[in-house]
């Protein structure tokens, strides 16, 4: 791999031990990929994972409050504790272990709270922006078309690659941490124009019109094309951003899709020909009503109609989604047997507070939560066995991670289940 003089100097320690280690990690990672060079980046979204369940337990108990030690081990894969300097890039933080105000409702222990507070202090000191969301793009962190980024979180990667035309691969906790310290990432994969071209054609014959249908379309395509690049043909209107957010999250859960095109909608696909740009189409796949029903049938864990928990906000909800749930709950009460937890970025809850949405949801018996999620933070009400959600991604993960029977339906059906305590939804 070719390195610039500046990159070599950082590797040799010109900017200190931590940045030298970070550059070494990026170079070894780039060599593993087979990259020929690195590229500059000033947009990193990654996890500071020292407080997350599963990750925090890896750190020896006496070192868990020493953020230099925690970050060196978990984020930089270093055997020695490095003194962590400020991040060089704009750096956005992903999901945290708890909501900063509702952590007791979430059942989080005061030990975990202490870890989270300690991680927060560190983030402030080194410049990780504490948007604490899987959707940094919803709270102003929007890259420019063509910008080279280093983002983790598959649903965010597919969003910025496809809808904005930014360039990133699905990074990990260690590559984002190293990239943020040196402002470099291997020039490989979706950073290169060739890799971004479509490989599979999807003929969308069924008119997908709701968030649930878009989610199922994404889930179906992910299952079929795995990690390739699908191009959708037949979408004759501009879909809502929330539809596409759910579409991408689903496609990245069932498969490993990191980028897609929608002819006439996404920026690198003014036409279906432009989406392929000369690359041979490997397979043409039809999506009709039959395929929609097939995909819905893959979510088969829901059996018991007595629903204990409704989960909204996977990926984190937009203000419009919060508004919809608030309007459906306004003046009503949840069933005594059912919890309703909705997750949104902290910046959006601040607005929801001012608009009265948070209060409406609370008065009905539900919670609008931030910073966290049921899957990664592993927070949920005690005794839950049956859940319902309007998200294919969440319905994909809840049975696997928590063993919940999980129903999938529209937002309206989920709210109805929250009010009655009974699941009566399904594909319409």
């Amino acid at each position: 791999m070719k390195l610039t003089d500046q990159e070599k100097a950082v590797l040799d320690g010109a900017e200190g031990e931590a940045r030298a280690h970070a550059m070494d990690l990026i170079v070894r990672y780039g060599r593993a990929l087979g990259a020929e060079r690195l590229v500059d980046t000033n947009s990193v979204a990654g996890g500071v994972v020292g407080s997350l369940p599963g990750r925090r337990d890896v750190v020896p108990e006496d070192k868990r409050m020493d953020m230099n030690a925690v970050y060196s081990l978990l984020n930089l894969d270093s055997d020695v504790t490095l003194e962590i300097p400020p991040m060089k890039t704009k750096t956005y933080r992903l999901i945290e272990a708890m909501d900063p105000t509702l952590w007791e409702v979430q059942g989080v222990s005061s030990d975990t709270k202490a870890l989270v507070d300690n991680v927060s202090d560190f983030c402030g000191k080194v410049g990780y922006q504490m948007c604490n969301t899987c959707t940094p793009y919803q709270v102003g962190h929007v890259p420019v078309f063509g910008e080279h980024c280093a983002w983790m979180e598959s649903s965010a990667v597919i969003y910025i690659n496809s809808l904005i035309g930014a360039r990133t691969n699905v990074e990990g906790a260690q590559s984002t941490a190293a990239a943020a310290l040196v402002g470099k990432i291997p020039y490989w994969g979706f950073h290169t124009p060739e890799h971004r071209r479509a490989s599979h054609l999807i003929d969308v014959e069924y008119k997908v019109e709701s968030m649930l249908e878009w989610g199922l379309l994404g889930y179906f395509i992910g299952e079929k094309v795995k990690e390739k690049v699908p191009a959708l043909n037949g979408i004759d209107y501009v879909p809502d951003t929330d539809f596409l957010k759910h579409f991408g999250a689903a496609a990245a859960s069932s498969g490993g899709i990191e980028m897609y095109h929608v002819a006439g909608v996404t920026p690198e696909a003014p036409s279906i020909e432009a989406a392929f740009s000369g690359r041979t189409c490997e397979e043409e796949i039809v999506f009709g009503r039959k395929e929609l029903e097939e995909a819905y049938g893959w979510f088969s864990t829901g059996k018991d109609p007595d629903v204990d928990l409704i989960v909204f906000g996977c990926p984190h909800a937009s203000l419009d989604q919060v508004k919809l749930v608030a309007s459906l709950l306004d003046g009503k009460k949840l069933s005594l047997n059912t919890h309703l937890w909705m997750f949104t970025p902290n910046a959006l809850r601040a607005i929801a507070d001012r608009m009265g949405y948070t209060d409406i949801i609370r008065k009905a018996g539900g919670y609008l939560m931030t910073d966290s999620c049921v899957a990664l933070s592993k927070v949920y009400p005690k005794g839950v066995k049956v859940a319902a959600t309007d998200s294919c991604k969440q319905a994909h993960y809840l049975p696997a991670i928590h063993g919940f029977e999980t129903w999938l339906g529209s937002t309206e059906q989920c709210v109805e289940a929250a009010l009655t305590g009974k699941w009566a939804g399904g594909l319409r």
Partner: protein
Amino acid sequence: MGGRAALSNIILKGRGVVPGIVEGEALVTSQTISGFGGIDNQTGEITEVRHELRGQSFKDKVLVFPGAKGSSGWASHFQTVRLAGAAPKAMIFNIMTTKMALGAVVTRVPAVTDLDQNPIDVIKTGDWVKVDGDSGIVEITPATARRDQGNS
């Protein structure tokens, strides 16, 4: 390796991903492996419900597989596996992705890819495999030849 074994050994040439030389017994799967929700990161056991290796551990084995799938936390799960002492001895894989590359780097075991024959077809579980992550060369002593060696 003795001269007798060398006659039946198979050599594959590819590209080194993580340097280092090691040898061990192969564990082969034709299915990709998930980090999050796919493995027990304390024991190295495959836990994914529909996986053909479910219940088997890759600890101390030369893991031969198509590549990584699933959550962006893949590398973190394999880093945890290493810290728990349950890492494979080496990795041989086909499909290069960022998850796979970063995962191999933080697992810190010799790894190779881009082999001139499909290693999933050529290598069988139980074969003895030498992995050279510096040169990208893989040397396979089939389990059958190993038995012959033992008998002679």
